[in-house]
């Protein structure tokens, strides 16, 4: 009986099956790369703001502490964005006519708040609490990057759950002394390898099982 299929079918079937798998893998890679990229997570993207506020100038050059504006970071889940009045505390006296500050003055004059675009935005089903992180020795720069070097604010890290778990599974890697939390330039001393474990014990940071319980962040 003659063959139904041409001999080349052998090759084509192998090529197409293998090629199909490779293509599916390629598609998967494309999807994942997009999903984990800054396009979706916002990492590294500088967003437009009503006023081009420069953290590099105010924090880096002027030396203003984070807490002057982000006032409730030590007592609340939300760190707080400063009200217009905080800006006007200084800018009613300096740079009083600068055109770049006109939206701020207009907001204060008309009693209409400034509408900033949110840079660090977690999904609504995630409940992040700033105060406990700050209290336990997680520095501002650990998550937000070197804000004192950012002329315009961008999101330093991906804020994906896997990134949070990186620390929650092993806090000793990232904890710093409490008095260094607001120090942007802090670096771990190279000569003290056990500092992380020591601080975790001293600050009574919970074990990984507690930190990775779902209800710790999701409710």
């Amino acid at each position, binding site marked *: 009986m003659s063959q139904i299929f041409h001999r080349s079918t052998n090759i084509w079937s192998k090529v197409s099956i293998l090629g199909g798998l490779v293509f599916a893998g390629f598609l998967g890679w494309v*999807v994942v790369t997009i*999903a984990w990229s800054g*396009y*979706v997570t916002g990492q590294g993207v500088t*967003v437009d703001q009503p006023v081009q506020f420069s953290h590099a100038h105010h924090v880096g050059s002027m030396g203003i502490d984070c807490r002057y504006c982000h006032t*409730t970071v030590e*007592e*609340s*889940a*939300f760190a*707080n*964005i*400063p*009200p*217009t*009045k905080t800006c006007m505390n200084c800018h009613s006296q300096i740079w009083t006519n600068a055109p770049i500050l006109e939206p701020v003055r207009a*907001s*204060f004059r008309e*009693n*209409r*708040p*400034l*509408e*900033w*675009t*949110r840079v660090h*935005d977690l*999904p*609504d*089903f995630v*409940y992040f*609490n700033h*105060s*406990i992180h700050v*209290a*336990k020795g997680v520095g501002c720069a650990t998550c937000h990057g070197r804000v004192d070097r950012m002329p315009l604010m961008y999101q330093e890290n991906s804020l994906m759950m896997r990134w949070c778990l990186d620390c929650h599974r092993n806090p000793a890697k990232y904890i710093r002394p409490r008095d260094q939390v607001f120090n942007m330039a802090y670096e771990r001393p190279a000569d003290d390898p056990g500092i992380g474990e020591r601080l975790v014990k001293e600050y*009574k940071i*919970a*074990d990984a*099982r*507690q930190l990775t*319980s*779902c*209800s*710790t962040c*999701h*409710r």
Partner: protein
Amino acid sequence: MSAMDFSAIRSRLAGSEGRLYWRSLGELADTEQFRDYLHREFPEQASQWNDPKGRREFLKLMSASLALAGVSACTKQPAEKIVPYVRQPEELVPGRPLFFATAIPFGGVATPVLVESHEGHPTKVEGNPQHPASLGGTDTFAQASILTLYDPDRAQTALFRGEYRGWGDFLIGVKDALGNHRVNQGVGLHFLTETITSPTVLEQISLIQKTYPQAKWHRWDAVSQASDAVYHFDKADVIVSLDADVFGGGPASIRYSRDFATRRREGVDVEHGGTEAAPAAKPMNRLYAIESTPSLTGAKADHRLPLRASEIEAAARALSGSGGGGTSFSNPNAQKFIEAVAKDLQAHRGTSLVIGGDYQPASVRQLARALNESLGNAGATVTYVAAGNAPADPAAGLRELAQAMDAGQVQLLVILGANPVFTAPADLKFAEKLAKVGLSIAHTTHPDETSVLCHWNVPEAHPLESWGDARAFDGTVTVMQPLIAPLYDGRTTAEVLSAFIDEQSGKSAHDLVKDYWTRAYGGQVGGFTITDSSGQPFKSAESFWKHVLHDGWVPGTGGAGREAGGAAAAGAAAGAAAATTPERSSNLDPRTSTTASAATGGLEIIFRPDPTIWDGRFANNGWLQELPKPITKVTWDPTAWISVKTAEDQKLRDGDLIELKFRGNTAKLPVAIVPGHPDGAVTAFFGYGRGVIGRVGQAPEDVAREFDVYRLRTSDALWFGSGLEISKVGRYVIARTQEHHLMEDRRPVRDANIEDYRKDAEVIAHMGEKPPRTMTLIPEWQYNGYKWGMAIDLTACTGCATCTVACNAENNIPVVGKDQVNRGREMHWIRVDHYFSDDLDNPKTYHQPVPCMQCENAPCELVCPVGATTHSAEGLNDMVYNRCVGTRYCSNNCPYKVRRFNFLLYQDWDTTSLEPLRNPDVTVRSRGVMEKCTYCVQRINYARIDAKREDRKIKDGEVVPACAAACPADAIIFGDLNDPAARVTKLKKLERNYGLLEDLNTRPRTTYLAEIRNPNPEIAPAPAARTTHD
């Protein structure tokens, strides 16, 4: 449902050994249909499995949805704005709620509350733990009032003949209308209000009456909350309720539930169980209920005697020995019962309490008062305050007004808060007569039947937006402060009345209230003796004002202070409704009432306010509409209650639609057969059938407009009457949760008598089997930190379901509507189950709140394919909404049926006024995810973070879940089981502690303290406790 075979049910009950617990007559009848219904929790999908053709479709759908489930994660989060203040208020920390003390009046009487406010918008009502009138509890109405605040159907602007007006226009309009009345001293000027306890408003009324001496004040409440008695359940050993529902909602029920429950538990537990070796601290109290319509009080009672409402007065006379021996009651057990109760009362002189119900004529309350005084109870278990609070004839004021309107004598009518067109007795024909009024002003929160017929409509500010004051049931004054500026153009009663008082016009409510209290502090008005809580005078008026607003009550105004300060003003303002010594009721002569029904023929009709929407005012409140009503667990509709015998005689089944004919008026209602209802009577609940109502209260079917029972209510038979005729006119679908989430023949409720419990404390434990902890291959969880647990005390629980509404408010739980409730899809995370036992005609009733059990061996955790429900390090069963793909296997596996699935998008994304209502600390769930009770993990996390920041442990009592905080009886206790000193740890050590369905080895963290009752051996021999589990 096919016709029920009651004789078969009765023989089943009689033949069973020991006690049988049942939820519904259908369960008892155990028909084919019922068994079928029971096994289909998700009928539409699962039934396809058995059908060979359908199975393919089912598999296709399931696999497609599983594949697509992951794709939903591939969305990019939209950019959000973040908007700070321009000038941030100093004490406001975003993310930390503030609590403000205020009060929510109910029928004029204040329910004291603390309201949680997130960034300036109130989200949750809690009780005020320091307030003597509530000790921290609340009721369903106070909890649900937050939804009414954000109700999009509220009246928003003033209207004159349907056209928009401003507040200034109203003031001018009033000034013009008053022009004539100044000259003629107020002839033709009439005010109609409900009960008012506010000292500020009462002073305004007296000022108006000084300027216009001929002006008339009329008072009308469909259900009056005014009472001349304050009961002290903590001091009572024996309590007899004469058709008084003291636990059934309303401001007084909060404190009464707490006192009664505390006394009950003190009588049962002392250290390890109140055994013979260590007797309990106080004797256990005993509650008798001689009542008509089954109520929560009757459900809690150790002994209940069902009588027709018209027979209660005769029972009261027999109880006090003044009835003569010849009274015959419709209930053959009545004579023996009353004799035993009378004996028990005599044995407890000075520590007993007889309560005459509000739904009975004044003569019953007078008989109760006389009996209390003769037993020496007055001043001990009950305090009587000045008469004149509760008028003998509640309809007198309205009748006078109707007559004046009919005669054309009313030129200016001001209706403040009442809705007489809907609620007035039918014989007064109020709506017709209202047309004869010269100028009518209606001050209401919503457009309603009265306001659409009035010339001026002035929107009323919600209590949570209002400055004001009000008295609690014990007289304690609370100064009300607003949580938010009025959302619309609402005004308070004080502001409306200030338009009639020259020296006050133009003043804001804040100024009016503060001015009154500054003068009261100075002793110039009100007759109050104002001191701080330690008895010392305040430093200044300003200091007094700040303290009173902070604490939520004015010390020295309760109890005796009420007599001095309030009674005089209240008496003056009662106007036409002032009472003298109340005589025999204007109802039927009780000497003939026992045979009245037989004589005049027909049934007796008993009127009651609907337990959840009350007199109709909450008809647009979705939480209360969907709250399953006590005893019957019906939602969204009223029902007519009849006893089993009456149903047999009249050949009626559950869900039959009947027409009620009474005194020439008709209405329709669906039937609910309620075991324990007196024979020959029908209870009709008023409040439904509203003509003008918002989107939630709209009747779904045309026939539901006929459910207006106010058509049958006449001023001479406000609470009951004879001569009712009923006839079946069709069928009606009732959405009822009684048969939802059944636990199938297992023994969920355990109870025992105090004597049995004292003899053998293990009697509760022997009612079930607890598997040994080694009976599982899964290693035990280790809890080194906190170990959360909950104990629910069934001896304390009164079944009021405040926990359900509180949980709704705290956790953003959606309202699903009648159709979905009918499919078993109601979303309540905690439900109050209702069980009956024993006699079909007078059963014992049990309530059991069922939240998630947070099992240590959770059947749901094992089966989730995506790991959306996991066990936390502190023992909670976490529900992670973002992982859930909606297989519903977890709910399938849960033996308690406490998991709720969002079958559809039940949340209202569109109505913008509801956005500030939602608790920002809890995710708002969309369709397709499972949800369940979380032990209020948001509160646990909040407390844990605060404690960690302060480097301390969470204190016992610092974390209080919403249900536990709201419970008026303090029946729900929550805490850390790893703390040996915690209250919950001690309670779980009691012998009467048991887990629900613990023989399934789920190891629930929520356990129950069994109900212990205190029967009187002379009335009925207590049935033997069922000690073997079978």
